[in-house]
């Protein structure tokens, strides 16, 4: 038996100018209650200036078993980083 309310994931923008970041989850009967509960549960000390709540069921996640296949190909592409290129010390502003 499961009569739980909908599960929402909670995201907080901690300061103006920063991105929203996942902080946890909660149950609520609807989206408005989810925002109100998120405020009481996750921002009792001014942790944020903005809240997002998203139904957990709406999140599509990558499969941890496929992590290698997904992310491994980027590993040997060091030429995508600026430090790959040797520039003489005398050259400035580069």
């Amino acid at each position, binding site marked *: *038996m*499961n*009569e*739980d*309310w*909908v*599960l929402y994931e909670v995201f907080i923008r901690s300061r103006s100018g920063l991105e929203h970041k996942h*902080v*946890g*989850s*909660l*149950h609520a*009967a*609807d*989206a408005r*209650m989810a925002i109100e509960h998120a405020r*009481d*549960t996750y921002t*009792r*000390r001014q942790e944020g200036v903005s809240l997002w709540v998203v*139904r*957990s*069921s709406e999140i599509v*996640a990558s*499969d*941890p*078993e496929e992590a290698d296949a997904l992310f491994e190909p980027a590993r040997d592409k060091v030429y995508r980083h600026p430090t790959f290129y040797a520039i003489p010390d005398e050259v400035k502003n580069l």
Partner: protein
Amino acid sequence: MYTQALDSAGSAAPQGEADEDGRLERFQARIDRDEKIEPKDWMPEDYRQTLIRQIAQHAHSEIVGMLPEGNWITRAPSLRRKVVLIAKVQDEGGHGMYLYSAAETLGVSRTTLIEQLLSGRAKYSSIFNYPTLTWADIGAIGWLVDGAAIMNQIPLCRCSYGPYARAMVRICKEESFHQRQGYELMLALARGSAAQRAMAQDALNRWWWPSLMMFGPSDAHSVHTAQSMRWKIKRFSNDELRQKFISVTVPQAQYLGLTVPDPELRWDEAAQHYRAGPINWSEFHAVLKGDGPCNRERLAARREAHEAGRWVREAAAAYAEKHGAGAVPARSG
């Protein structure tokens, strides 16, 4: 606040299990490298069950822990003390919520967890089955009980299970105020009238031993410590944490001019810390079994609150239904 090494992982450690595809070995290797395990990662069933039980017990403790302190909100002696106590109790409710959410990532539903608490099948920390008889108890709880909880919880911030570790980071940030407000309250009483000092001493007398018991059975009787350490769910043994608590707390009592109620308490010159006398473990086991001073009262209060809130939950669900945001099954697995 309060995880307590109460008992029992399910079956024994999994070394005996067949590990044909080497999954167990790879899992242990990830833990040994200090990688975090996340909800969708493969994990041994024993690891999952051990965590569900520990996180749930911890969550229940936060929730039941609101009762002894809530008892004094209406009688706080000043507006300042009242807003502080309300804020603290609200934090404990929040801690319960973070922890239930963390437990749910392991595949158990909130309804099931609440049901286990209300039916009396789930355990929670023994400390909350003691009564709060005077205002000084509110100081003693913040100072000693939250103090012991902090000792227990700081290592859990590095627990191998990601959602639990993250919940603990959030909780530990909030606990410090709990302990400090309690000590400040004790300080006010200790500097007050003779009657106030006596009240503070009486609270210390009653809360000292139950606080030491919060760390769980002694290492000699704590069967599951080794496996939990291997899995990095636990980082220090019960006795190690208890000793740390004694070491920092005895000087704090001395500063208050209060006496720790232990005739065998002594300074250990070699170890450079205080050592406590023997703990009355039969009291601990009686309280855990349900025979503490307030076990029945605590559960009755939780059940009553749950029933009294039923119409609110039903009305909210009906409203959501009507406006097209009705309950759908919670996330599985």
